[in-house]
């Protein structure tokens, strides 16, 4: 055994499962919380995320005397500025933040996050996450978050349309439609099964992928990473002009021909009804929509969808699949809170097998998605997501990447979103977009500090999947 392994490296290793079962861990968490006193905890959390957690929070309150009822209801998309403001002010007001875990590097850099490893070691807690999903909670070897939401992009195909046109497909391509393996194949499928020339007439468009300024980059990253690309080289120079990045830009733009003309202005409130209403054919989307597509009360397309692995790319010379987790809802503990220990115990409680299963399996509030190994074999979860839905989530979790897991995540992604949006609507050319992104990324690196960001590269790369395709 190599005794020269550093503490940092040890802390970065996945925690080994404890013998004796999970109820043992639950009990240890309760006892640790009881010995830390009682409090009324306060958090910044979107009500849509909080609702399915309420029952578990009440159970915790009954067992320990510590409540979590006082919440500041802010959408996960707009919570980061509010949380950063709390951090800069070193405010002790809030104990917990439920926020996109891709903000961990930024928030840890402000010095506002409590390290959770000591609490985890105290009770023998481990995530038991699928793939490398637990690494999304780590930064520079320390753990800062408890995931509640296994948000990962999953492939959706309106299979009813495929079945209806399967023989026509076979006649044209000389093979049965099985599953699009690459981005190019997906576009080919979209052109065939939802031809753009008839899209307006039938109000049935090929792509459900978002192309608005706020979200477009989420899709672009999948295309970059599956081409074998990365956002920066080892010296923290942006790689936006690399062949892989150019491929990602060009592939992203190719979807325009199969997208609704109003896609540049649509977000999830516009796209989800189109999905459940059967007005789009295919795309990658947050897995939380699977229960909505399978919900007989709201879906007009019940049983018409198939879910699976997102497309990959052969650009690098081998097939690589990359999905994305963004935003990834996680509970982070405020270092400046005098109740941080209790907040950490509650966060772990909500992430235990028994509690997290109930949270992610909620059929109505589908904002928390499955992420742990135990969720993949849970009947409760399968009831909401269907077995094929769960199987597809498990596949995509194994190849889930972050957008940019660095300090300055919001700035990098907004710049990329801006330039992608400008190129998509034709205000600038793709080559101008690439050039601007390269330059602006370089400016951000300079402003944030190249040395600092280089030191974070290890954490960023640690979050990337370790396999090219799921098992």
């Amino acid at each position, binding site marked *: 055994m190599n005794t020269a392994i550093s503490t940092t490296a040890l802390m970065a290793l996945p925690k080994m499962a404890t013998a004796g079962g999970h109820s043992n861990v639950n009990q240890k968490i309760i006892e640790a919380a009881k010995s830390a006193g009682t409090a009324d905890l306060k958090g910044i959390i979107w009500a849509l995320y909080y609702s399915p957690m309420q029952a578990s929070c009440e159970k915790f309150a009954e067992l320990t005397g510590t409540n979590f009822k006082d919440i500041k209801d802010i959408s996960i998309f707009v919570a980061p500025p509010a949380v950063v403001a709390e951090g*800069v002010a070193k405010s002790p007001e809030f104990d917990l933040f439920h926020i996109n875990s891709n903000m961990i590097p930024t928030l840890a850099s*402000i010095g506002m996050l409590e390290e959770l490893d000591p609490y985890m070691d105290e009770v023998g807690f481990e995530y038991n996450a699928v793939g490398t999903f637990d690494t999304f909670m780590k930064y520079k070897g320390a753990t800062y978050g408890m995931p509640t939401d296994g948000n990962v992009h999953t492939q959706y195909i309106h299979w009813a349309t495929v079945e209806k046109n399967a023989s026509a497909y076979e006649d044209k391509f000389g093979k049965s439609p099985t599953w699009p393996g690459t981005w190019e194949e997906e576009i080919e499928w979209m052109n065939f099964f939802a031809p753009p020339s008839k899209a307006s007439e039938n109000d049935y468009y090929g792509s459900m992928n978002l192309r608005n*300024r706020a979200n477009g980059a989420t899709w672009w990253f999948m295309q970059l990473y599956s081409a074998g690309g990365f956002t920066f080289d080892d010296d923290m120079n942006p790689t936006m002009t690399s062949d892989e990045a150019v491929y990602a830009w060009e592939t992203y733009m190719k979807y325009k021909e199969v997208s609704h003309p109003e896609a540049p*202005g649509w977000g999830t409130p516009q796209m989800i009804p189109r999905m459940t209403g059967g007005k789009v054919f295919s795309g990658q989307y947050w897995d939380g929509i699977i229960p909505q597509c399978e919900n007989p009360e709201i879906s007009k397309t019940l049983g018409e969808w198939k879910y699976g692995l997102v497309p990959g790319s052969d650009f690098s010379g081998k097939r690589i699949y990359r999905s994305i987790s963004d935003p990834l809802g996680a509970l982070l503990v405020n270092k400046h809170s005098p109740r941080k220990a209790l907040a950490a115990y509650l966060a772990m409680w909500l992430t235990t097998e028994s509690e997290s299963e109930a949270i992610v399996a909620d059929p109505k509030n589908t904002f928390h998605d499955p992420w742990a190994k135990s969720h993949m074999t849970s009947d409760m979860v399968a009831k909401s997501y269907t077995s094929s839905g769960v199987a597809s989530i498990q596949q995509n979790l194994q190849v889930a990447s972050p957008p940019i897991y660095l300090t300055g995540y919001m700035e990098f992604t907004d710049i990329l979103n801006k330039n992608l949006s400008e190129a998509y*609507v034709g205000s600038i050319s793709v080559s101008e977009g690439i050039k601007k992104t390269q330059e602006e990324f370089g400016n951000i690196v300079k402003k944030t500090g190249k040395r600092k960001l280089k030191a974070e590269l290890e954490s960023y790369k640690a979050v990337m999947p370790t396999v090219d395709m799921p098992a």
Partner: protein
Amino acid sequence: MARSLIMQQRRKRYQKMVLLPLIGSMLLILGPALFLQLYLSFNFYSIYSSGWWEAEWYALDIFIDVLKDTRFHASIFRSLLFATISTIGCFFIGFGLALLMYRNFRLQWFYYIIFIIPMLTVPIVIAYTAEMILYQKGPLNGILSMIFDREMMIMWITNPDIALFTVMLMEIWNWTPFSFIIMMAGLASLPKEPVEAAQILGASRLKIFFEIQLPLLRPIIILALVLRFLESMAEFPKTWAIFQGGPGTSTETIPVYIYLNTWYYFDWSKAAAMSYIVMFLMVVIILGAIKILQKENKRINQYQSN
């Protein structure tokens, strides 16, 4: 003579009595924020440093950076364009409604309420409701198709060439009542004698409007335009709720760009410097407006004393 001097002194003392507490409380509330903003605009502050006072002295470099920033120039241009067109739109429609409404008639109160409802509606509600109305296959295009008897598929929200114009339309709908109320008050405060005298002399209504009422209304009109213009420059909720600066950067106005710098890029020093530059621009506009108003008041006083 002595009496008028005493009156003047009393008036000045009264003005100070009324204004000083107001100025004092504003300084107390705004002062710390303005001071911190000034400090940040001369010192580069990073949210990753341990305190405000560790910010590095940059002198005018941050301001120079901002002034060289082409994205800032573009956002200033968009804001000025947006504010100018929406102000003119609000004014003409508001004034027109005021002209129809300023004389008493039956059910005047009902129309008054209807006309001011848009101003009472929360901007975010306007944004989300408008978004549904403005979809390509939404009600607005439906109505336009009926009127023009052909399919109208205008992309109000997703065409970068008209997105800013869409925000202008929402702004005009939202704030026309403001101009309406000011012009109603202006029309109601006009002296009746010049109008009656002109009517006796046989002047037409148009002549009375253009040669008597409009010149007397000029100070009110300038006030309505300036106040509306300043408010429009600060418009944010409707723009951000629907567009977030997009599609592309077509609706990236100054408030949106400052917001992005503050809360997405966390570049508080740059945002502070931008805010001061914009404030300076607004102060120049206000001073110009005050000068014009003072000239107008002098002209009216001369006219009335004649």
